[in-house]
């Protein structure tokens, strides 16, 4: 009990459960998709590139999850957007307009 409290209070992250969770997360993504490590890394890299074309994102927070519900598997891509890139020049100079008018989209964040 006190060890648990101590670990929680002082942020000691030595819980073996956390290790189990992250290992499972890794191995299940491989099992469910049938992609190899290299393919997964490649997919991730390309996804980041595509999103970065339009947004400035926090690459550290970029995360791909395979979430299975009763009879469907959903690909969840979580990409924290730091700032919208609308108005600033994009690599291919593609004018990007989202669902809001240009004036609002270009506001400083």
């Amino acid at each position: 009990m006190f060890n648990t409290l101590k670990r929680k209070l002082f942020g000691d992250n030595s819980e073996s459960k956390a290790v189990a969770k992250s290992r499972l997360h890794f191995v299940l993504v491989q099992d469910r998709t049938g992609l190899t490590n290299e393919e997964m890394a490649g997919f991730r890299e390309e996804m980041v590139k595509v999103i970065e074309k339009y947004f400035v994102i926090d690459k550290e927070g970029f995360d791909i999850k395979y979430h299975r519900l009763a009879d469907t598997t959903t690909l969840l891509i979580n990409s924290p957007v730091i700032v919208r890139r609308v108005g600033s020049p994009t690599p291919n100079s593609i004018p990007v307009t989202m669902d809001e008018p240009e004036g609002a989209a270009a506001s400083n964040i």
Partner: protein
Amino acid sequence: MNTRNSGAGGKKDLGEVIVITSGKGGVGKTTTTASLGAALALRGQRTLVVDADIGLRNLDVILGLENRIVFNLVDVAKKICKPSQAIIKSKKSNNLFLLPASQTDDKDVIDEAEVRYVLDQFRREFHYILVDSPAGIEQGFRNACAGADSAIVVTTPEVSAIRDADRVVGLLSSKGIEARLIINRIDFDMVRRGDMLSVRDVQDILGVEILGVIERDEQIIVAANCGEPVTYNPKSKAGQAFTRIAGRVCGEPIPIPNLAGGSLWDRLTRKLGVST
């Protein structure tokens, strides 16, 4: 898609076939089959437990019926005996019967069509037919799933067992068989220390409905030693858990204790924003 309900609720005269499987060996499939079968029988449900682990039969030993076997699953499939000649009534209950596996054949001696034929011989006689699947995902597993209306996937809160359970849930889903999960051998002291995945963790990872949670319990070994399902021991926590699971199988809305509210400690830490 929802074969479970159409099997049991739609036609009352036909029994519901549930396959008990796991992928990984040694997680408690046979114990679950025997204990859940006994619990259903105690509720007055006529229940047949089928040992589909051809060549490595064990359900007979767990039920203490090893010295009463004359015919087996393969004999019924090959029409060597009448279906009624192969099933053995349990010592403890008039509602619980065993269809043993053959010990001398290989797993591929019968195919899925033959398993369906065997199950059809018993569907009108029983409310529930529980099929104990062998470990693995090969022919033995495919045979055990043939004719199943739904599945119970047994896992323990360990990386290897959960990984295999995930694979099996995927395979069942591709066959259109809905799976529910039993988490076996959980140790809540270890969960509290952060050294074991919690019920919620396992559910989040697998994304499958939880049917029940069985605590690690020495009485399971004692029961296996004696050849009597742990369900008959009213003091055993595992026995009580199987009784609750039988209630859920019969459609009673019995909550999973460690999923809804969690322990006082769980609720406290959640409130404090500590991830557990």
